[in-house]
C-alpha cells in the first residue's frame, strides 16, 4: 500500500493523457495536442527545475527567476540575429548550430547573471523568507526595466530557422518539428539531471545538502560554494528555457519571464517544493492539461491549471513529493 502511494503520482500523467483522449475524441487531434503538451511541459520543467532545486538546497525561492527567462530569450535572439547567415540557410546543420550557439550564449549570460544576483541580491537575506520574496521581486522589476533599456520597449519578433519550421505528418496528425526538438532537449536534460544527482559526487553533496546542510558543512564541504554553483546552474537553465520558449512563441517581451512564472510556480507547488521528480511530473501535467483545455475550452485554460493545483493540494497538501524543508 505504501509503495502504491509512492508510485501513484507517476501514473498521473498517463492517466491525464488517457482522459484527454476520451475527452478530445479524435485520435489525430489528440496526438498533436499531446506532443504540444509534452513540449510545453518540458520547457516549463527546464525553467522550474532550477527554481525547485535552489529551494530544496538553500531554502530560497527566487521570485526574480522570470528575469533570467527573459534575459535568456533576449540574448539568444540577439545571437540568432547575428548568425542570420546561418539561420536563413536551409541547411539543417547550420540551423541547429546557430540555435546551439544561441543556447550556449544565453546560458552563459544568465549563469553569470545568476552569480551576480546571488552575491548582490539574495546572499544578504538568506534565512529570511519575507525579505527574500520582497528583494527578489525588486530584482525582477529592475531586471525587466534593464531589458527595456538595452533592447528597447517593444516586443521582438524572430522567425524560427527554416528547418525547424513546419511539421511532420504522422497519419492524419501534424506534429511541429520544433516541438519534437523541445521534447528531445527536455528529456535529455531530465535524464542528465537525474544522473548528476544520483550518480556523481556533486549530486550526492546536493542531495545531502537538501537533507541537512549543516551536516554537509560539518563534514568539511563548503556549502556556500555549492549554493552558488546550484544557483548559477538554475539561472542558466532558466535562460535555456527562455530561449526555447521564445523560439516556441516566436515573439519575446521583457515580461515573458514573469508571465510564464505563473505556470512555473504552479508546477513547483504541484511537484512539492524542492523535488525534481515532482517538478517533472507536475510540468507534464500542466503542459498536457493546458493544451487539452486550450482545445476544448480556451477561455478557462489557465484556470484549469489552478484547479489542478488545488486538486493536488487537497490530495497531498505539500505537493506530490514533499521535501523535508518545505514545511
Amino acid at each position: 500500500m505504501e509503495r502504491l502511494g509512492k508510485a501513484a503520482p507517476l501514473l498521473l500523467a498517463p492517466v491525464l493523457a488517457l482522459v484527454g483522449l476520451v475527452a478530445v475524441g479524435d485520435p489525430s487531434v489528440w496526438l498533436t495536442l499531446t506532443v504540444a503538451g509534452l513540449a510545453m511541459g518540458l520547457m516549463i520543467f527546464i525553467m522550474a527545475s532550477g527554481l525547485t532545486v535552489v529551494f530544496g538546497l538553500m531554502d530560497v525561492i527566487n521570485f526574480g527567476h522570470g528575469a533570467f527567462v527573459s534575459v535568456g530569450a533576449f540574448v539568444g535572439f540577439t545571437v540568432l540575429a547575428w548568425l542570420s547567415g546561418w539561420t536563413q540557410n536551409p541547411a539543417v546543420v547550420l540551423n541547429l548550430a546557430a540555435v546551439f550557439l544561441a543556447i550556449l550564449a544565453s546560458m552563459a549570460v544568465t549563469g553569470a547573471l545568476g552569480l551576480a544576483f546571488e552575491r548582490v541580491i539574495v546572499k544578504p537575506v538568506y534565512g529570511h523568507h519575507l525579505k527574500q520574496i520582497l528583494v527578489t521581486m525588486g530584482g525582477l522589476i529592475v531586471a525587466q526595466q534593464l531589458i527595456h533599456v538595452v533592447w528597447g520597449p517593444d516586443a521582438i519578433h524572430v522567425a524560427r530557422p527554416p528547418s525547424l519550421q513546419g511539421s511532420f505528418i504522422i497519419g492524419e496528425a501534424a506534429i511541429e518539428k520544433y516541438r519534437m526538438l523541445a521534447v528531445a532537449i527536455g528529456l535529455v536534460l531530465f535524464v542528465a539531471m537525474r544522473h548528476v544527482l544520483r550518480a556523481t559526487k556533486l549530486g550526492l553533496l546536493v542531495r545531502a545538502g537538501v537533507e541537512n546542510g549543516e551536516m554537509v558543512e560539518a563534514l568539511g564541504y563548503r556549502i556556500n560554494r555549492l549554493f552558488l554553483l546550484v544557483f548559477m546552474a538554475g539561472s542558466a537553465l532558466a535562460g535555456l528555457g527562455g530561449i526555447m520558449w521564445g523560439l516556441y512563441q516566436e515573439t519575446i517581451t521583457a515580461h515573458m519571464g514573469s508571465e510564464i512564472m505563473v505556470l512555473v510556480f504552479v508546477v513547483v507547488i504541484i511537484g512539492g517544493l524542492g523535488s525534481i521528480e515532482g517538478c517533472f511530473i507536475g510540468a507534464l501535467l500542466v503542459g498536457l492539461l493546458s493544451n487539452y483545455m486550450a482545445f476544448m475550452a480556451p477561455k478557462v485554460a489557465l484556470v484549469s491549471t489552478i484547479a489542478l493545483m488545488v486538486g493536488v493540494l487537497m490530495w497531498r497538501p505539500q505537493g506530490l513529493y514533499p521535501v523535508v524543508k518545505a514545511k
Partner: protein
Amino acid sequence: MIDTLLSGDRPHSRPLALLLIAIGLCLAFAPFLFPGTKPLDTAARICIFIVLVASYDLLLGYTGIVSFAHTMFFGIGAYGVALALGSLGASFLAILVGVLAGTAVSCALALAIGLFSLRVKAIFFAMVTLAVASAFAVLVSQLSSITGGEDGLTYRIPRELTPAFRLTDMRLFDVRIDGRLLAYYLVFFSALVLFLIMLRIVNSPFGTTLKAVRDNAFRAEAIGYRVVLYRTTATVLSAAMASLAGALLAIWIRYTGPATTLSMEIMIDILLMVVIGGMGTMYGAVIGASLFILAQTYLQSLMASAEAATRGMPLLPDLVAPERWLLWLGTLFILSVYFFPDGIVGRLRNRG
C-alpha cells in the same frame, strides 16, 4: 478625543506628526487648495490608495504574510460596483448592492485561499496567490461578455455625484459646489473611516496577537493561539478592505478595467508603497501612498525634461526616460528592504 480616534497609536515623532497633519489637511481641503481636475483626481487617488496600501500592510507588515492577490480583491470590489451600476441603473442602492456583493465574494475567496495555503510556509502562500491572481486576471479579460474584457466597463453613477449636479448656486471660496465635489468628499470620508477602522484593528488585542504570530509563529502557537485562524482572519479582513477601496475607485473614475484594478503593475506599486512608507505601521501607508502617487503624477514629467536635457549622450537618456521610472523605484525598493526595513516612518521615529 484624538487618542480615541487614533486608537492610542500616536505617531511618536514630531516630524512624522507634522507630515501626517499636512497630508491630512491637504486631502481634506484639496478641492479648495488645489483647484482643477488633475489635482483633485490625484487627491482622490491618494485617499483610495491609502486604504488599499494600509489593508496590504495589515497583511504584510502586521501578519508577515506576502500576498500577490491583493489587486484581485481590489478588482473584485471595483467590478462589483461596476456590474451593479451597469445592471441595476445609476442609483445609490446599486452601489450598496455592488459593495456588499464584491466584499462578500472577496471574503469568501480570501477564506478559501487562506485555509488552503496558510498552513505551510510564507513562500507557499506567496506563490499560490501569485498564480491565482494571474489566473483571475486572465479570466476577467477572457469573459468579455460580462466584464467587457480588456476594454473594461464604463457606467453611469448617480447624478448627485456627477459634475452636472449643482447642490447650490453659491460658490464657496470660488469653488462650485457640484457633484464632483460631493463625490470627492464621499471618497475622502470613506477612506478616513476605513483607515481609522484599520488603525483600531491593529491596536486591538487581535492586532497584538497578529504581531506575535508575525514575530514568532511557533511561540504564539505554543502559548495557545491558533496561528492559522489568526492568519486567515487577517487575510479575510485585508481582502474586505481592499474590495472597499476598489469600490471607491470604481465610483470615482466611473470606469473599471483590468489595467486600472487587476494588473501586476498595481500590485508592484502597492508593494513599493508599503515598503518605502514603512511596513508594520499604518502611518507608513499614508506616507508611502501620498509620496508615490505624487511622484507618479509629477515626477515623471521631471524625468521627461531630464531625458530631453541629456539627449545625445550615450545610454543616459534611456535610463532617465519617464517610462523607466520603475527602474529607479525598484532599485530604491531593494535598498530600502536592506537598509531601511522600517521605511520612512521607522526612520522618522528613530530620530525622534
